[in-house]
């Protein structure tokens, strides 16, 4: 299979200016390559930077060195050096990112939150909402909540809305940060189905799982951070 | 009788030259408000000090002067100004519109059509039509310079939104020669059509605000309006109670305290002429 993501010599340190300029090294030399249609797990002890690696790939964190090369259609972009506009462009069409935390915007209904990634790509509103509702239904969000802002939803419901949002538009690269944490068994398996579907559709999945079984169910390889 | 203590028409010659220059500029740029060094006159502001200075600057010994206040020759303001010029210049005066060469007016245009041999001088309280919406002079001058007149329609919009029609009935803004929006002084909008393509030169003087502007003879003057709310003038169902004329501007006169009233021509010369013709 073709590689869609190549991480080369990736380095990350945090400098905390508010705490006397202490420098916290996260990792020094991460190498990895992920192909379309495969799922790779990021593993390692807690605090070793698993989530940080996902954020670096997504561009939320700035790398201290190295390269994160992402295939964007026929060309390659390097997240480490890309201009903000390029990263935004990649996020619209190439890199999806799902966490367990929903950033709730007051007054925006759940179905719109889920449909937004499609709307951003210019998908027709009716079609986008149709897809959003399918996903909300699949993730057991009661229909009466679809028109409401998730502001008042339970933690688990908010998490599922966020997952639905992450899966509404297809992305060639999908970053998952403990997507199933704190879900019940039924919802977990539905999320796992979504991941399998994305994989089957050709997405490269890079995931952090806290559950070994789930990791083994979808991931074929590990990127170990030690 | 010419009082010897005064120069002809009260103002000194230097002042008249200064005002004539302003008038020339005003005629050259129709509708543009030309600043001038307005003098203190022997009458209070609001009594027509602007109009008086313009008249004084253009008056010659051979002129025949008519002065009207809201159409009437016999009201305090008209009588005072007429006497002022008789005393300071000794020119002939008349109440007949067609006999006058210069007509100074407060808030009316005579009903009798004017000719190329006449000059109409308006007394203007507030020359700036944009003042209602924009208090800064620097800004209104810029708006005139850049022809930013959208805000004038805001005023008309407000009228329609509140009263269902353009409720501005006097000092109705108009555009001169497709360029400057101007305030024709507080004449009733009934008179606005007379401004357009008028054979007489029309001069406007604002004494307190120190501005002179002009509408040269045969100049296009278009009252502002909306496509779906076109400019319209007032009409009356009944003719003048005194002379029986139709189509003149009528004043309402209350005749007793029991609701009795009559409508009569505001133009006293026109009304008198019409009575003569009828009798």
């Amino acid at each position, binding site marked *: 299979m073709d590689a869609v993501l190549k991480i080369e010599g990736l380095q990350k340190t945090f400098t905390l200016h508010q705490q006397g300029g202490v420098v916290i090294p996260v990792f020094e030399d991460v190498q990895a390559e992920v192909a379309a249609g495969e799922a790779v797990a990021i593993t390692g002890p807690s605090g070793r930077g698993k989530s940080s690696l996902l954020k670096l790939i997504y561009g*939320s964190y700035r790398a201290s060195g190295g390269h994160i090369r992402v295939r964007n259609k026929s060309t390659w972009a390097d997240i480490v050096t890309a201009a903000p506009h390029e990263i935004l462009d990649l996020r619209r069409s190439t890199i999806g990112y799902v966490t367990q935390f929903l950033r709730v*915007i007051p007054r925006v209904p759940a179905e719109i939150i889920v449909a937004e990634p499609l709307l951003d790509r210019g998908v027709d509103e009716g079609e986008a909402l149709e897809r959003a509702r399918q996903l909300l239904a699949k993730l057991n969000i009661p229909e009466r909540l679809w028109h409401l802002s998730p502001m008042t939803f339970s933690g688990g419901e908010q998490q599922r809305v966020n997952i639905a949002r992450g899966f509404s538009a297809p992305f060639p690269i999908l970053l998952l940060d403990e997507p199933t944490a704190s879900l019940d068994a039924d919802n977990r398996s539905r999320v796992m189905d979504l991941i399998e579907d994305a994989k089957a559709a050709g997405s490269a999945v890079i995931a952090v799982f806290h559950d070994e079984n789930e990791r083994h169910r979808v991931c074929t390889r590990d990127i170990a951070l030690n | 009788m010419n009082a010897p203590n005064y120069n002809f028409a009260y103002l000194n010659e230097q002042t008249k030259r200064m005002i004539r220059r302003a008038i020339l500029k005003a005629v050259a740029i129709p509708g543009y408000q030309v600043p001038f060094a307005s003098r203190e006159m022997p009458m209070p502001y609001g009594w027509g000090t602007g109009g008086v200075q313009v008249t004084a600057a253009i008056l010659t010994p051979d002129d025949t002067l008519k002065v009207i206040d809201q159409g009437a020759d016999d009201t305090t303001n008209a009588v005072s100004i007429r006497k002022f010029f008789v005393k300071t210049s000794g020119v002939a005066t008349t109440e007949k519109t067609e006999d006058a060469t210069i007509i100074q007016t407060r808030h009316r245009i005579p009903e009798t059509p004017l000719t190329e041999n006449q000059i109409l001088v308006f007394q203007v309280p507030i020359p700036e039509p944009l003042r209602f919406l924009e208090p800064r002079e620097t800004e209104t001058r810029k708006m005139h310079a850049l022809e930013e007149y959208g805000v004038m329609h*805001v005023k008309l919009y*407000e009228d329609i939104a509140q009263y269902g029609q353009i409720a501005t009935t006097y000092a109705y803004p108009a555009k001169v020669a497709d360029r400057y929006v101007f305030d024709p002084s507080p004449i009733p909008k009934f008179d606005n059509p007379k401004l357009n393509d008028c054979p007489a030169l029309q001069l406007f003087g604002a004494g307190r605000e120190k501005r002179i502007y002009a509408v040269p003879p045969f100049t296009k003057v278009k009252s502002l309006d909306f496509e779906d709310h076109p400019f319209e003038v007032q009409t009356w169902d009944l003719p003048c109670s005194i002379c029986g004329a139709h189509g003149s501007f009528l004043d309402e006169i209350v005749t007793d305290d029991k609701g009795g009233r009559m409508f009569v021509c505001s133009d006293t010369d026109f009304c008198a002429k019409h009575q003569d013709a009828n009798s």
Partner: protein
Amino acid sequence: MNTLLSARDVGKTYGRRVGCENVSFDLHAGEVLAIVGESGSGKTTLLKCLSGNLQASSGEVTYAMRDGRNVNLASLSEAERRLLMRTDWGFVHQDAREGLRMGVSAGANVGERLMAVGARHYGRIRDQSEDWLSRVEISKDRMDESPWAYSGGMRQRLQIARNLVTSPRLIFMDEPTGGLDVSVQARLLDLIRGLVRKFNLAAIVVTHDLAVARLLSSRMMVMQQGRVIETGLTDQVLEDPQAPYTQLLVSSVLQV
């Protein structure tokens, strides 16, 4: 992506005091840029230089006009600049009284920009005003009221309607939610966010509130003492701030 507005080394000095200096960036169509920093950091000065309300002492700002020309804003005649401000640009002030004509009704406030570009049909102007007021959630039975009768939040929404009625492509906002109650702020932010997306508006938002920046913008510039000390994607700047001052700013936000 096409660049709408581009600033190069923009600076403004007041005598020897620096308002802002060496500011460069490109703003693309449909993009929202937040300029954050504390009071006195030069962000409002910069906004005024960018929008032509203040003449920059150095540098230049170019803008892609609707007809495709890229023009140096300083080279525009005043008439062209004022036309641009009334049509292709909008400006939302912190104090609505600066951005509204307080003496006339809400409907006339919205209609003014249409009349300024030549609309002369009362019925159509009124329909459009009504339409825009409803988009900012002001009901039509209040359109003939003066903005004095409006609450702070409504005045801000009215300002937005007044600006958007000519379909501008770029909106400048100076602390658009400043001085509003938190609940009113949320409604306004959500409204702005929706309109920006729907009409593909570009916006430059000056704010000292990082939450406002997070909600509205995709990119951020952090200013301190007139200089831009950090720029990046909004989530980058907020989640992985690099400059000491930015770290202080981010860590000072109270968590609820």
